[in-house]
Structures are given as C-alpha cells and as structure tokens.
C-alpha cells in the first residue's frame, strides 16, 4: 500500500530542505470525485497531497509546462530557479518522463521522481463509474487491494471489482509501477493478468476494412478539434503543432515571412478529412513516443478511442522493431534509427 502520509512527509521534506522548487502532485478536486493536479511550493501544503484511483492525470505534462515557463523567465532576463521539480509519478507518468529525458527536453537532474505504485490495479475510468447507478454521485474511490475499488456514495461504501472500473489503459498496462524513480512508494506488482497487452487494437484490427473505416469516419466526424487530446499529452510539447496551431511560435524575432509561410497541412475546419489528417499525423508523431498513459482518450469530451491509434503503432514498434517508448532514455528514437532486418516485404 502506498502510505500517503509518508508521501506527504517526503514531499514536505524536499520542500523544507529546499531541494526542490516545487512538488507536482494530486489533491482533492472540488468537482466530483476526481483528484486534480496541484503544484505545491511550500512544505505546509504537502498535507493536501493525495494518491488514489482518481489520480488520472499524467503529471509529466506539467514538467513540460514548467520548462516552458523556465524558458520564458530566461527570455525575460530573469534567472530561473535552477532547483529541480519533484513529480508524483505513476508507471506511465514515469515513462513519459523517460521520453522527455530521451528527447533532451529535461535533464535527469532537473526532476525528482516520486514514484507511486498502482497497487496492482490502476486508475478508474470516470465514464465507467458514471455509467453505474449513483456512480455520478460518488464522493470517494479508494484502492482496495489489486482486485477491487472501494467506492463511497453518500455514506455508503461498496466494493466494486477493479476490472469493472479500471481505465482501459490500465487493463492493458504492462508496467504498473514507475521503473524510473528517485523514491518509490508502494509495492511493485508485476503479474497483473488483467488483460493482454494490445487487446483492444487487436480486436479493432479484426474488423473488415470497410467496417474499420466506417468506425473511424464516425469518430473523425465527431471530433470537435478542441485539441484537448494534444493539450494533455506530455509528448505533444512542440512549440507549434505542425497540424494545427492553437499554440504557435510568434517571438519578436519571428519574421513576417515565417508567419506568412506556415504550412496549412490541414484546415481548422472540423471535418472528417481535416480531423483525420490531424489524428493520423499525431499518431505518427507519437510512434515510439507514446507511453500509453491514455490521457488523450480520457480527456476527449466525445470519447473518441484515440488510444487505439497510438497503441496500434506502439504495438507495431514493439513487435516489428522491439521498441518500447520510455523504457530506456538512452536509446535512439524509434524513427531516427533502423535495423537492416526491418520489414521490407511490404515494399515492391
């Protein structure tokens, strides 16, 4: 069991001793049952940290934010506080940190990883919870061993099989504890046997081509192009996204020419074709980088199964190229390396 008090104590200690600038973690939210991300700058606030199955966010996203702010401070000629930031990280979050390290976005000494184990289960899918009677009114969800969650609604506590509430990403997760960490709370549970890896992708692949397109056309058609999937992804930290710009580079040094010649690979219109271009590009851009935290899928307001696109390529990378994102931050990236024996038979 993760001892949350110990975790709070550890965080408080880091801040107390001035070893870190801040601790990024989770605290109770105000809206519904879900925990929410928080950044703690003072030891006293460490008391508010929580760790439970509603800690959904991949907090590595905030390391990206933090680096951007540090860089902005630098351009404003302020000397940034060079101390590291600490981050509470689940297995997938720590793999995200590993990819950020691999891509030189962070330096290892810039981050203190406070690992938390998923206790052999994982985090919940709020939609699965909401689909249950009274699920929307739940006020707490707690770990109850590897096989169940304890859900509190009003004053009543019910045990619900973990499998019924677990987020899909967690069902398929292969490493539910952070391998990359500076300290680890909770036990490492390796054998989970909830679901086989890539099950959903394999199932989706089983459909006929026309059926597959019908499904994806339906999804691309529904996409609002709110870009929440991108905004939440720790790997989509590009200063300007290639596929559509809601964040884009415009510094005092950006020339008129540069602004005038931005490529419109796809239009802002939320239509099947443009959304397809956006999602397919994003999937390719995440090949070998996506660590399957499932955040993109979780945040999508219209519930597009985005994970499938990423895990499809993750599966190919794993099966064809023996590549796993976030496994080793020293390895060359999937797409900037190759082997002589890479598949060739698809080429004439």
């Amino acid at each position: 069991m993760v001892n949350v008090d110990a975790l709070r104590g550890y965080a408080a200690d880091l801040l107390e001793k001035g070893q870190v600038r801040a601790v990024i973690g989770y605290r109770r939210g105000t809206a519904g049952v879900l925990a929410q991300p928080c950044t703690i700058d003072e030891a006293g606030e460490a008391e508010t940290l929580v760790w439970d199955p509603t800690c959904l966010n991949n907090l590595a996203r905030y390391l990206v934010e933090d680096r951007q702010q540090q860089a902005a401070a630098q351009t404003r000629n302020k000397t940034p506080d060079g101390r590291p930031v600490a981050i509470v990280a689940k297995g997938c979050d720590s793999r995200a940190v590993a990819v950020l390290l691999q891509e030189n976005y962070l330096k290892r000494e810039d981050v203190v990883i406070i690992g938390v184990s998923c206790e052999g289960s994982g985090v919940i899918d709020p939609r699965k919870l909401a689909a249950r009677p009274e699920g929307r009114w739940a006020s707490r969800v707690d770990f109850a061993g590897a096989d169940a969650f304890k859900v509190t609604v009003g004053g009543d506590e019910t045990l619900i099989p973990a499998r019924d509430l677990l987020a899909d990403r967690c069902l398929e997760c292969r490493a539910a504890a952070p391998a990359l960490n500076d300290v680890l709370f909770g036990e490492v549970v390796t054998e989970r046997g909830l679901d086989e890896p890539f099950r959903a992708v394999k199932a989706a692949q089983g459909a006929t081509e026309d059926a597959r397109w019908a499904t994806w056309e339906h999804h691309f058609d529904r996409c609002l192009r709110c870009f929440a999937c991108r905004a939440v992804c720790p790997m989509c930290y590009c200063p300007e996204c290639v596929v559509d710009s809601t964040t884009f580079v415009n510094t005092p040094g950006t020339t008129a020419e540069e602004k005038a010649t931005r490529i419109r690979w796809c239009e802002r219109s939320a239509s099947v074709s443009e959304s397809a271009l956006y999602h397919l590009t994003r999937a390719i851009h995440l090949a070998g980088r996506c660590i399957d935290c499932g955040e993109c899928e979780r945040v999508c307001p219209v519930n597009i199964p985005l994970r499938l696109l990423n895990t499809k390529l993750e599966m190919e990378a794993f099966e064809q190229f023996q590549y796993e994102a976030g496994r080793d931050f020293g390895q060359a990236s999937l797409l900037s390396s190759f082997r002589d024996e890479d598949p060739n038979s698809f080429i004439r």
Partner: protein
Amino acid sequence: MTDNSYLPQIGRIADIQEETRGARAIKTFQVEFPDSEGFEHDCGQCAMLSIFGRGESMISIASSPLVKEYKQFSIMRMGRVTSAFHDARVGDFIGVRGPYGNRFPLADWKGRDLVFVGGGVGLAPMWGALQTAVAQGEDYGKISLFYGARTAGDIMYKADLERLQGAVEVQLSVDAPEAGWQGYTGFVPANLMDKAPSSANAIAITCGPPIMIKFVIQNLKALGFADEQIYTTIENKMKCGIGKCGRCNVGKDYVCTTGPVYSWAELKDLPQEY
C-alpha cells in the same frame, strides 16, 4: 452593400506607394471600387481587407472621408495577409468590408488645438483625421504632429509631411539618426516633453506601439492634459470586425465596434488587455 456583413466588396488596387523598406516594410495602397459604390467612412474607422485565399486583416482607413474617389490604406508587412498585400501589384483585386469601428469625434473638437502624436505605422490610423483637420483648418486651432520612427528611412508619408509643413507643425524624431539628420533624436515621448505643447484647449491623439503610447500618455498628463483630452486607438486582434468573434474583447467592449478610438478617460477603466 448587402446586409451580409461577411461578404466583401471587390476593390481594385489603383496605386501602391512604398513608404518604408526592411523586414517590416510599409506600403500605402489606394483602393477603388470599380463595380460597387464603395462606402462612406469616418476618421478613425477601419476596414477588413482581404486577399482571397490568404485571409483578412483589419486595416485603418488612412484617407480622409473627404476623399471620395478611393480609400487609402497603409499596411505594414507582418504576416500572412499583409505579406500578400506587399506582394500585390497595381490592378490586383482585393476584398474590402467595412467601415468598422467608432470614429475620432472631430466635430466635437472644433475650435481646439490638435496634437497628434504617432510612432511608426501608428501614423496611419490618425492620418485621415489629420488630413481632415488640415482641410478644415479654419475650424481648428493649431495643429501639430509629433512623429517618430526608428530611422529616417522608416518615416512614412514623407512627401505628404513635407507638403503639410506650415499647415501643421511637424516635429519629427528618430531613435537612431544618420548623418545629416536635422530633426530631433530620441523617442517620441521625449520629443513631446521637449517641445511641451500647451494642453490648454487642446486635444491629443496618439497612436503607435503600445509601449510608446504608455509613455506618451504619461507625458501628456504631465503636460496637463486631462484624461478626456487624450485619445488613442487600440488594435487588438480582430477577425470578424462586427463584435462577435471575441478576439478583440476587452472587458465588456468588443473593440471592433466600441473602439478602436478611446479617450483615455474611457480606456483607463477598461482592463489592460490590449
């Protein structure tokens, strides 16, 4: 004009003047309307100009409403649309919709001294008002213009400024002088302090880079100008021009319809989001 506010009229570029060169060059365009009646405008108003396929940009109408044959726009090369304008040639067709925004209350200023304070391309939004005031010179007191640019080469409307000398007291300044520069060296707000125009019965109109405006207003106040005597324009990003798309929204105002002209008395109460 139809009641479809989004549908531009087709204008034709009748003349192009190169005002300044460099990375952010300025060109002045005279636009006429060969197939439609065009529109009437007031000093300080703007129009949405487009190059089809590139998009739209809000641009101040720099010509005086007294000029009916064409509308004049001075455009700085900044991005997608403005670059397309800079690549355009005489005879090219563009889209124009407008006029948008409020106006300088010129009629209310009759009998007063007018002090125009501008920097860079900021001269353009005031230009129509300046021209009109000069044309109706007898209605106004003394008209002066403080105008500054980075270098002498960055001064726009050079020929016109020479022509106006006399009718208008023109005070030019540059930040970086070259050999032979006769005028003031230094920033516009400093020049303003240096020449210290009288605030008695005067209206000051200022337009330029945000940082310049900030100091000009400070200095105007030091010179005794009351908040109600100071006017400026704000140029938030605009897409629709008709108070809907939300980009120019500052506080309760949609600048494209409530602005862009504000007296400092009005502006200082708005959130500083411009």
